[in-house]
């Protein structure tokens, strides 16, 4: 009995300690109306993406040429495209593609950025110098151009677009992580870990990286937003998702030739991009303010 009380006491103190930082950040985030609006819309799109086949009234590749180019109506609330496909359904399926494109490309760049940034920041000296100069060179190429060139050399397709965007975003992430590590490397607790002969790997992954989590989280959120825009651009010029996939950028490209008479083919996919990216940016901005109250802007 007494042991139980003792244990539960320990548990509660542990819990309080553990949750305090993130819990406080969450409380601050909850008070931020803009961030909450963004979060609701992002969650909404995630749900749409997950349950696309249940929500969409038609399949994304249901072609019926005799109903092509219909303006928005009760039956097709966003109209139909040049092949008679329901634009609303395509946008719903497209949320799967765009979110996946954004998330996987950022996963690539974050993974690579953490490894490169950690090596560079932790070892410093010549290694750091060389790595950072190489990153400089990559960053002197406009991001969109680099993505286009990589995607062009790998060939069209979703997977290649993700790799292209992932590589393009890596130098920025690596630089962010390196900066964080440079400042944490000299902290006392890192010195303490070193004193008890912890390996470099352990110091980096157990002691340093967990403390860089909040800027990484912000970077990931804003990164997914940016990656979705870049991916749409790649698909627009024919390098990303290929027809008949309803990627939003590809849908805009498909409707482009008909804008003279049918505005709805390009308008709705663009609005979808804008909504998702705006909300992700809202969440990212909110997270930044919530995780680092000093930087609140």
């Amino acid at each position, binding site marked *: 009995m007494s042991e139980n009380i003792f244990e539960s006491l320990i548990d509660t103190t542990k819990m309080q300690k553990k949750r305090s930082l993130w819990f406080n950040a969450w409380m601050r985030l909850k008070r931020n109306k803009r961030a909450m609006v963004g979060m609701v819309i992002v969650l909404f799109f995630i749900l749409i993406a997950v349950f696309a086949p249940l929500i969409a009234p038609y399949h994304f590749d249901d072609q019926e040429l005799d109903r092509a180019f219909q303006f928005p109506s009760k039956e097709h609330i966003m109209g139909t495209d040049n092949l008679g496909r329901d634009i609303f359904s395509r946008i719903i399926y497209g949320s799967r593609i765009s979110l996946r494109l954004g998330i996987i490309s950022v996963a690539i760049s974050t993974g690579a950025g953490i490894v490169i940034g950690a090596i560079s920041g932790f070892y410093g000296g010549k290694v750091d110098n060389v790595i950072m100069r190489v990153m400089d060179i990559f960053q002197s*190429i406009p991001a969109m151009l680099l993505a286009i060139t990589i995607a062009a050399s790998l060939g069209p397709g979703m997977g290649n677009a993700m790799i292209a965007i992932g590589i393009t975003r890596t130098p920025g992430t690596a630089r962010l992580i*390196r900066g964080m590590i440079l400042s944490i490397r000299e902290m006392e607790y890192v010195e303490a870990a070193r004193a008890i002969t912890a390996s470099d790997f352990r110091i980096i992954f157990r002691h340093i990286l967990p403390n860089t989590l909040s800027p990484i989280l912000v970077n990931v959120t804003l990164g997914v937003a940016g990656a979705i825009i870049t991916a*749409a651009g790649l698909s627009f010029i024919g390098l990303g998702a290929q027809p008949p996939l309803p990627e939003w950028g590809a849908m805009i490209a498909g409707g*482009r030739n008909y804008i003279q008479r049918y505005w709805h083919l390009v308008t709705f996919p*663009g609005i979808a991009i804008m909504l998702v990216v705006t909300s992700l940016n809202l969440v990212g901005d909110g997270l930044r303010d919530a995780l680092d109250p000093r930087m609140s802007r």
Partner: protein
Amino acid sequence: MIRYVTKRLLWMVPVLLGVTLIVFTLIHIAPGDPAEAALGFETSDEIKAEWREEQGLNDPFLIQFGRYAYRVFTQLDFGTSYSTRRPIIDEIKARFPTTVKVCLVAVTLTNLIGVPIGIISAVKQYSFTDNLLMVLALIGVSMPSFWVGLMFSIIFALHLRWLPASGLYGPKYYILPSTALALVGIAMSARMTRSSVLDVIRQDYITTARAKGVAEYKVIMKHALRNALIPIITQIGLSLSILIGGAMVTEVVFAIPGMGTYLVQSIRALDYPAILGTSIVIAFFSSAILLLVDLLYALVDPRIRSQFKGKKHLRGSKA
């Protein structure tokens, strides 16, 4: 100062070589047979083999790269286009000024409008104006510029018939593409300017200035803005680099015969030498701008100049 300028100029050499190497490698690993792309499907294998030998495509990678870089840097020779058989440099010369003009108009608009918006927002932080402007700016950075371009041409060209929708036959034709590009740029620049000014406003010397009774407009104009100028300059260069990237796709929307349209055409035609040449020229252009910004930066900020008076320079992280 001279020391810094020389150092920065010398650094351009590895940057340009590195950029060339990156793009060259990318195009080199691209799948597909260049001989087939250049000569067509029906060509016999012997002729293709001969052509490959003639073009030096059988040499080791580094030799091929060395030869290419040598030609690019000494004679500005980017090879011949597979599809038009003309020297690529001629194609680029015909298109490069167009892209530069579109981008220059866009970057001018971006900074003339974006920077003041950012300053107003920062000075009136948390006011209704600030909130409104920042929500608009956030929406602005969340739109792909090619889509903004399409919306502009639907509204202003096709429905209102104020401006031409595509092509390039006079100054009027620059308006829509440049504003479409600028819209996203303005939003970006407003956000960045706001946060740079806020960073400065939080500094102790601003509090000091206020405490000793300096008039608020003077605090802003003399103490805050002067110091915020440095990050603002960096961001002008950055915005130009982002605009150039955006222009690649936006040009396609308006069928502007610039570098972006050419790049996309070359990608569709699998015209690898043209893709390579176009990418390199644009990358060079953008590195040159970054160089210019760095030099300007040093001119404005005495702290950077003084770094180079010592024996060894310590580069801070530029992020």
